[in-house]
């Protein structure tokens, strides 16, 4: 609960495509990636319930083994947020805030999830909050898995792109890019709207859920995450995430 408002966290996860099969259940420093995400979400002060949403029986079994609540969802969703919506409805409870916490963000802590929730709760004109981090232009250009975002003076998202933004203009100015971290608290109303709103053009082209809000004129607030994090889309990412987690927990475990 935050200011009397109830908070549901949904972690959508699926076994994934050919690019990196079995992704959510890959091991990182002795635990499944999905378990790291779930444990981090469980540290939240505001989350009243945390559920993993998946269409895969194998993931259901793994989640039950480590004690997570899991909701079996359809295999037909085209967007992660649609899966989150199905899980939200399946709880059959009334929620004020729903968080879409992607299962490939094993380094985002409960503390940072809470900061995102606070940002949403303190701005009544905002439909959804995303965390973001900075990335060098060169790395941003190389990695099309990372979603770049440009923001206005209030830090509301203007556009999300697979291309690096802003442009490298005349070759004499270099910028760092803001990169989306998929920890996304939204009002329950915004989630209800998401499934009712028309599919948007750039949502499809860039393959970014948030564009549906942006193209329909709803505000998505970006909040900088200063904690070093790593989203996992391939083996290299996984290796790097493991190193980062190991560096944190080796000290703690001693």
């Amino acid at each position, binding site marked *: 609960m935050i200011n009397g408002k109830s908070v549901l966290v949904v972690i959508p996860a699926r076994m994934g495509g050919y690019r990196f099969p079995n992704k959510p259940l890959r091991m990182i420093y002795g635990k499944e990636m999905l378990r790291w995400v779930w444990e981090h979400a469980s540290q939240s002060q505001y989350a009243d319930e945390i559920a993993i949403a998946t269409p895969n029986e194998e993931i259901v079994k793994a989640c039950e083994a480590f004690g997570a609540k899991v909701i079996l969802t359809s295999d037909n969703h085209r967007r992660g947020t649609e899966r989150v919506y199905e899980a939200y409805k399946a709880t059959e409870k009334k929620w004020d805030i729903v968080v879409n916490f992607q299962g490939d963000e094993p380094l985002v802590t409960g503390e940072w999830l809470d900061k995102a929730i606070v940002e949403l709760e303190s701005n009544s004109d905002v439909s959804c909050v995303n965390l973001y981090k900075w990335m060098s232009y060169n790395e941003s250009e190389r990695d*099309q898995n990372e979603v770049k975002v*440009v923001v*206005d*003076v*209030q830090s*509301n998202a*203007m*556009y999300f*792109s*697979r*291309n*690096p*933004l*802003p*442009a*490298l*203009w*005349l070759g004499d*100015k270099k*910028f760092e890019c803001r990169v989306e971290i998929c920890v996304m608290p939204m009002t329950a109303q915004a989630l209800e709207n998401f499934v009712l709103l*028309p599919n*948007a*053009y*750039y949502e*499809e*082209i*860039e*393959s970014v859920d948030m564009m549906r809000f*942006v*193209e*329909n*004129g709803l505000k998505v607030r970006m909040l900088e995450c200063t904690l070093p994090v790593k989203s996992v889309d391939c083996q290299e990412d996984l290796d790097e995430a493991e190193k980062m987690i190991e560096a944190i927990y080796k000290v703690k475990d001693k």
Partner: protein
Amino acid sequence: MANIIAIIPARMGSSRFPGKPMAKILGKPMIGHVYERVSKSELLTLTAVATCDQEIADYIESIGGTAVMTSDTHERASDRCAEALEKLERANNTKYDIIVMVQGDEPMTDPGMISEAIEPMLHDKDILVTNLLGKIESMEEFEDKNCIKVVCDLENNALYFSREPIPTRGRMNKIPMHKQVCIIPFRRDFLLEYIQLSPTALEIAESVDMMRILEHGKKVRMVPTSYNTNAVDTLEDLKKVEKIMSTL
């Protein structure tokens, strides 16, 4: 009837094409082509060139046009326009309603494009500024940093302007590719408000005036144009346009 004027900002010192406004197309300076074509619009009560260069002002006056001398310290064309607007209002002791900023880099500007850009403002009081929206016809143009790409929301308000090719290619077979065409009507008070807004990070990064408006959370309505457009940013562009115009 709304009192509508056009202001064409122009300067010699462009880093990419020095002396561009006075570069000749079919024997006539480019700014002359733009001036003559714009002033044919029946919607306009006045067309003026705003410049910090005496050479340009002298030329415009020599063809019977109106020129306004402005400061040479303006970073953005919109700032130059606002200064010219204030000077014209003082000189003519009148207040204009809509100021159409026409960039001097479209020598084939058609008066019909002015009508297209203004049209939505005549019906909707909430629209403060519009731009024409052109179709990008080739990948070469899409990748050209001089060509400013635009993405819009479902109501055709601009979301973002970029020198980068956006949206991203590769995920879908066909993507919409649109560019900004610099016929830009402002409501008077909004143009004056614009110059009071502080310059913004993405405006500077992309070197696009309109970004200041978007970053301050205001809307720019994009109006699809039915005209073909040929902006001149380089000497090569100029040769191309000259060839097209010589056949007309």
